[in-house]
């Protein structure tokens, strides 16, 4: 095995449990006496609930609970990270296909299933809106009751919010060439291999919750608020999720399960079926019109973006994805005049939520496709067009926000070099390139505790959720490096709010930077205490002592930390504790509430072959390069980047929800919702990273994990255009869609 330190790739902490089947996910947690719960919903996109009869359900042997909205506090408790809009159970009306109207709990899973089948619901199907056009129609039924937004002029529309950003004068700008297009992005779902799981159990005078949640502290706050409990009486256990991708960030059915557990006086366990997860979480779909003006030499003069994102029936964090994602629609370019209007449009569909990329993949699909079309119109090489407009390090490419924080040109040039851009094209193939960025976290607060134990081993408490990105490992690497102990001597404790201090959330690729720095700070505090110890022991001034990595240096003398520690702790023993705090304060005047801690920048270049007769796209080569500052664990970075790339190929080539004419989802489950398998990979996938140690995180790192997904779709579409001449503005690029586009292009007079 290679170097164990930071920048090395030691074996994943928690890896052994994962390869032996001993890793405990929430569905593996066994509680004595737990009741099994099942959700009951109506097979409609929208319905008025007339009556619910649970008597037959309650008569099933072993059934302990069958609840509806009437059994919950009045008025119905609601929750949500942006709007307090989501009811614990549907009241009067259901607003999306799969919204629970009742829940049952029984001694056995079989009894719960049978009881769920026996719940009788009398309902009246109502017309549902599930497209942007339908939702924006002036006569459309309102998804959200206007009373949720008193005084809001948009309250009588399905536009939840409209975001406006920009600078300069778009109207007055004069361009030689204007390229315009409308680009659509479908509804897709996270499809983590682990379906969501939730357990709640009465815990003394409080409650304990187990959840596959990415934000344990946030969930704690939500539950405490809904149950009117002090935070200290709500304990959230957050086992490592089996994939999150944003779909497990915010509370979904934990509140319901909590009410049920308190009602039953016993633990209640709910694990969603895969079909139920499709009904519970997805990405916002979008229609984005981009109008860009260029000078003949390819310089961007203006960019005018109007984006409608179709979010679901409840806001969840969807509007934030719209606001934050569309905010960077100008891309990493220097554009004198920019106007962005982005709307969150409510619909009677699965509530969209955070999903890797957070609103950016949709707009990058639009703006980078637009750039590629512009390259064609301008007769400028697509790579050259990007480089001409690309911001340099230090450029204030978005006025009022963090300046460009990387050598982006180098990232682009590396990708171009790897794909062989400019080399003679192979017959029948095409190449495409796209680049983009997303803002890192705009605010943040991460606490950690670092405990240097008496023998020099270390325990770190950090509230980040390790859902596969490898947070646990890099935290251990940081502590091991700073405190000079072997990696195997570090234990990282996560996922228990009773034991682990506050962490705002795990999202926005923030944890390397925010929690990483927090742990670094915790280590610094431990080091400071060791300096005091050494000063006392050696009768030397503290200023004369440095503690660096595993060593205490006093002038010429070098002492291992362990020696100082053992002597310093003395007879009573004990430990040295450091508290780490990393904070990024909000900036209320900023449109996003804060500037970007860093940018995730990626360039993706692909080479494809298109079978013109069938429309099949084969990605022959896929190159992805990310600007990461410092790869704390290169093996994990590669895993995340290549994983993100393949996930991007999913929405690029095959993933989409299919609805029937009334708004029901037709392709629930794994048979008709297709994601890439091991046989759907690019024939050759290569990833690389740019490391300039120019990030705000430990050792110059930046966040990563989302970048390599951002630009996949426009790169592939550009390659298809290069290979066939055909421009396609709608995803996914299924064989049928490509075939149809080729056919329509060949017979334009149809």
């Amino acid at each position, binding site marked *: 095995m290679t170097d164990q330190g930071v920048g090395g790739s030691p074996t994943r902490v928690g890896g052994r449990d994962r390869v032996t089947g001993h890793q405990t996910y929430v569905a593996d947690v066994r509680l004595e006496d737990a009741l099994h719960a099942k959700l009951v919903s109506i097979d409609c996109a929208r319905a008025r609930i007339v009556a619910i009869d649970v008597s037959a359900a309650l008569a099933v042997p072993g059934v302990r609970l069958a609840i509806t909205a009437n059994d919950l506090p009045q008025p119905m408790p609601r929750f949500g990270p942006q709007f307090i809009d989501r009811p614990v159970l549907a009241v009067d009306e259901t607003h999306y296909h799969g919204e629970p109207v009742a829940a049952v709990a029984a001694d056995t899973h*079989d009894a719960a*299933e*049978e009881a769920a*089948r026996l719940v009788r619901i009398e309902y009246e199907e109502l017309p549902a809106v599930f497209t942007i056009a339908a939702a924006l129609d002036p006569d459309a039924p309102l998804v959200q009751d206007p009373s949720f937004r008193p005084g809001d002029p948009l309250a009588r529309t399905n536009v939840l919010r409209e975001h406006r950003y920009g600078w300069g004068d778009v109207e007055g700008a004069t361009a030689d060439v204007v390229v315009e297009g409308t680009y659509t992005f479908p509804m897709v779902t996270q499809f983590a291999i682990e379906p969501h799981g939730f357990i709640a159990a009465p815990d003394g005078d409080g409650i304990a919750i187990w959840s596959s949640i990415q934000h344990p502290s946030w969930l704690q706050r939500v539950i405490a608020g809904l149950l009117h409990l002090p935070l200290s009486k709500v304990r959230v256990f957050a086992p490592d999720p089996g994939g999150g991708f944003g779909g497990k960030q915010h509370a979904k059915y934990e509140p319901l399960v909590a009410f049920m557990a308190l009602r039953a006086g016993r633990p209640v366990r709910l694990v969603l079926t895969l079909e139920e997860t499709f009904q519970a979480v997805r990405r916002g779909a979008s229609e984005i019109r981009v109008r860009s003006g260029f000078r003949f030499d390819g310089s961007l003069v203006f960019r005018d973006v109007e984006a409608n994102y179709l979010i679901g029936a409840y806001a969840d964090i969807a509007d934030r994805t719209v606001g934050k994602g569309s905010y960077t629609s100008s891309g990493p370019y220097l554009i004198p005049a920019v106007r962005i209007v982005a709307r969150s449009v409510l619909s009677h569909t699965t509530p969209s939520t955070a999903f890797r990329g957070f609103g950016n993949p949709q707009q990058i699909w639009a703006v980078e496709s637009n750039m590629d079309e512009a390259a064609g119109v301008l007769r400028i090489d697509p790579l050259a067009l990007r480089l001409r407009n690309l911001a340099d390090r230090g450029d204030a490419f978005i006025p009022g926000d963090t300046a460009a924080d990387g050598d982006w040109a180098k990232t682009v040039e590396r990708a171009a070099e790897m794909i062989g851009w400019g080399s003679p094209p192979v017959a029948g193939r095409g190449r495409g390139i796209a680049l983009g960025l997303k803002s890192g976290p705009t605010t943040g607060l991460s606490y950690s505790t670092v405990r240097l134990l008496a023998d020099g081993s270390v325990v770190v408490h950090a509230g980040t959720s390790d859902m596969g990105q490898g947070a646990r490992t890099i935290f251990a690497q940081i502590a091991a490096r700073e405190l000079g102990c072997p990696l195997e001597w570090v234990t990282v404790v996560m996922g228990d709010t009773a034991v682990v201090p506050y962490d705002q959330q795990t999202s926005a690729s923030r944890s390397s930077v925010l929690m990483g720095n927090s742990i670094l700070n915790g280590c610094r505090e431990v080091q400071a205490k060791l300096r005091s110890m050494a000063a006392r022991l050696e009768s030397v001034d503290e200023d004369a002592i440095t503690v660096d990595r595993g060593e205490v240096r006093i002038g010429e003398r070098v002492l291992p930390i362990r020696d100082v520690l053992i002597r310093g702790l003395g007879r009573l023993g004990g430990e040295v504790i450091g508290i780490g705090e990393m904070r990024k304060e909000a900036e209320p005047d900023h449109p996003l509430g804060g500037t970007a801690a860093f940018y995730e920048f990626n360039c993706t270049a692909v080479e494809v072959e298109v079978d013109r*007769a*069938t429309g099949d796209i*084969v990605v022959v080569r896929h190159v992805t390069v990310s600007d990461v500052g410092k790869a704390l664990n290169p093996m994990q970075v590669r895993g995340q980047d290549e994983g993100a790339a393949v996930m991007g190929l999913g929405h690029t*080539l*095959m993933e989409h929800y*299919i609805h029937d004419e009334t708004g029901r989802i*037709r*392709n629930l489950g794994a*048979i*008709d919702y*297709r994601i*890439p*398998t*091991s*046989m*759907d990979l690019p024939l050759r996938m290569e990833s690389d990273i740019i490391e300039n140690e120019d990030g705000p995180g430990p050792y110059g790192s930046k966040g990563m994990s989302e970048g390599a997904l951002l630009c996949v779709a426009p790169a592939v579409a550009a390659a298809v255009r290069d290979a066939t001449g055909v421009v396609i503005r709608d995803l996914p690029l*299924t*064989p*049928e869609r490509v*075939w*149809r586009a080729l056919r329509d292009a060949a017979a334009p007079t149809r």
Partner: protein
Amino acid sequence: MRAFAYERPATLADAVTVLGDGGPDARPLAGGTDLIIRLRDGSIQPRVVVDLKWIAELDREIRDGDDRLTIGARTVMTDLAADRRIRREFPALAEAAAVVGAVQIRNRATLAGNICNASPAADTAPALLVYDATVLVAGPGGSRQIPIDAFFVRSGVTTLVRGEVVTAIELPRAASSPGAVHLRRTRRRGHDLASVTLACAVQADGTTRLAYGSLGPRPVLVTDVTGVLADPAAPERAKVERLDTLFVAASPSARSMRASPDYRLAMLHVLGLRAVGIALGRLADGANAR
């Protein structure tokens, strides 16, 4: 899923009785890769599931006969895809069996179960049609043989009567094997249900047999006796026209999630032409090898 009783008949006679008596409330279980999905989603709710895998008279062998190959009812897709004789003499069937799902599915799914399930998209059906297979059946009325083309009625329906069980599937061995191939259209390169599934066999005497599935309620066999398709020297245009005529009855569902009707029809023609070319090539290779 809902509870049901489970029977494990040890003999064919017992199985026939249990299935006959049970009627629609009794469902046979072979590989389970279709049945269990339907049990889970509640689309079927049998009172009893009858496991056919313990019946003494049914086996998993592929037996050599002079003029036929007999495939036992318990033979799974993995067996077919790996069997030397199937690969050499009935390559379209081997190729179809190799794509009926991923390896975990292929290790359980039986050929008999695949045809009894009678999905219009069953991948093995087109191959069995072009190879003129015969289905051997045992039932309350005794044993009988059903030509494969008379076996399928429409989606989910075969000509089996209540209580009948497939005991084997026979493939006639020709004096000289045709050149044959199986092709299909899917939404991704990874395993998927086919939106078009097609087999083609070109015989040395100039007859071309094509069978397609997923373009209508049941798989369809068409035969070209003009010799145009089998003629390596015939211009492509002539073959295309011949295929157009042969495929005229194809009627893809308008409701399918997997592909639109016009795409399916277009792909039928694309695959048909490609299949003919490959089959011709294999016929020539086979002739050269002798």
